[in-house]
C-alpha cells in the first residue's frame, strides 16, 4: 500500500470531502498492474496513484465517479479482452477485479 494514496484518503476524510479508493483485488492473465495497486478518485475527477493507466483506468474512474453519487462500495470487473479494448490499443489481454471503496 502506498503512502501517498493513504495520505490523500486521510486528507479527504479530514476535510469531509467525498472520494473513492480503488484497489485491484484480483487479476487474470496479463494486466499492467497486480493486486494491491491503488488509486484515489475525487468527485472532480482528480486522481492520486495509478492502477495501470490506459482505458482500463479511465473506465474504472468513471465507475468510481458514479459510485460516489450512490455512496456505495462494490467490486467492479474490468475486462481488457473486449474488442473495444483492443481497438483502443489496450492489448494486455487480462481481466481484473477492482474494489471501489467509498472514503
Amino acid at each position: 500500500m502506498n503512502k501517498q494514496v493513504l495520505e490523500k484518503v486521510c486528507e479527504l476524510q479530514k476535510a469531509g470531502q467525498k472520494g473513492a479508493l480503488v484497489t485491484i483485488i484480483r487479476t487474470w492473465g496479463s494486466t499492467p498492474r497486480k493486486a494491491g495497486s491503488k488509486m484515489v478518485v475525487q468527485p472532480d475527477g482528480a486522481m492520486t496513484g495509478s492502477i495501470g493507466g490506459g482505458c482500463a483506468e479511465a473506465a474504472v474512474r468513471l465507475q468510481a465517479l458514479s459510485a460516489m453519487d450512490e455512496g456505495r462500495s462494490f467490486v467492479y470487473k474490468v475486462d481488457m479482452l473486449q474488442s473495444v479494448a483492443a481497438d483502443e490499443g489496450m492489448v494486455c489481454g487480462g481481466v481484473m477485479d477492482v474494489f471501489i471503496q467509498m472514503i
Partner: protein
Amino acid sequence: MAQFEQLFEATQDHPEVQVLTLVRALPDQVQSVGEMLLLYPDGRSDGCLIDQNFTDEVLRHLQEQVWQGPRLLEFAEGKQQVFWDKWLDRRKAVVLGGGHISQPLVQFLAQLDFDVTVVDDRPDFANEARFPEAQRVVCNSFAQGITDLQSEMNDQTAVVIVTRGHRYDLECLRKILAIPVGYLGMIGSKRRVREIVHLLVEEGFSPALLQKVYAPIGIDLGGAMPAEIALSIAAEIIAVFNQGSLRFLTQTGKAEHHE
C-alpha cells in the same frame, strides 16, 4: 466508515500493518462492505468485519495462510470476500558518497519511488542543489552519518556505498554490516572488493555476512558511463527487492508485463 486515519497513525509506529477489507458480502450484509480490520505485528487487531463471528473466522483462516503478496480470501464459497493487504514502509535508499555516479543514481531511485538520502563529508558534494531529487542530503562524516540514520534502516532500505575512495568504502561497510538492510552494495573492482573482504574477515567479520554484500556492484549491462553504472545499480536493487530473475523476458517465457 473505514478506519483510514487509524491505519495512517498505526503506520507511523509500526513498519508493517496488515489490512483486511471486506469487499463482497451476503445480500443482508452489504452495509458492511468496505469495513476494515487492522492487524499489528504484536497480534493485536483493530476493527470488525460484519460481526465478531466472521471476524474470528477470518483471523483463524489467516493463521493458516502464508503471505505471498496482496490477495483475495474467499468465504462462503466466494459469496464473502476479504482483500488481504499489507502496509509496508516506503522503500528507502541511502547513498554513501556524492560523486559522479551518485547523481544519476539518486535520480533513478527517486523515480523508482525510493526516499533517498545522500551522505558525503564534502560540502561541495553534499548539497541539495546537486541532488534536487533526494529527500535529504547529509553533510557529515560517513561514520556519523550512518550512526544517525541507523534507526530508520530496515529490510525496506537499500544502501549503496559509492564513496571516493577505498578507505571511506571500508569505513562505511564496517558500520553497515551490522545493520539488517534489504540491500547492500559496494562499488569497486573485483580485486579491490576482494582485498576489502579479506581485510574485514581478518578483523573478525563473518564471511557469511560479507557474502550478502553486492560487490562488485550492479548487474552486467555492458556500460561504463556514470549513468549506465547508476542504471545497473538501480536495476540490481529493484531485482533484489522484487525478486526478479534478471533475464531477458524473451528468454523467461513469461507473457506477463512487469508489475
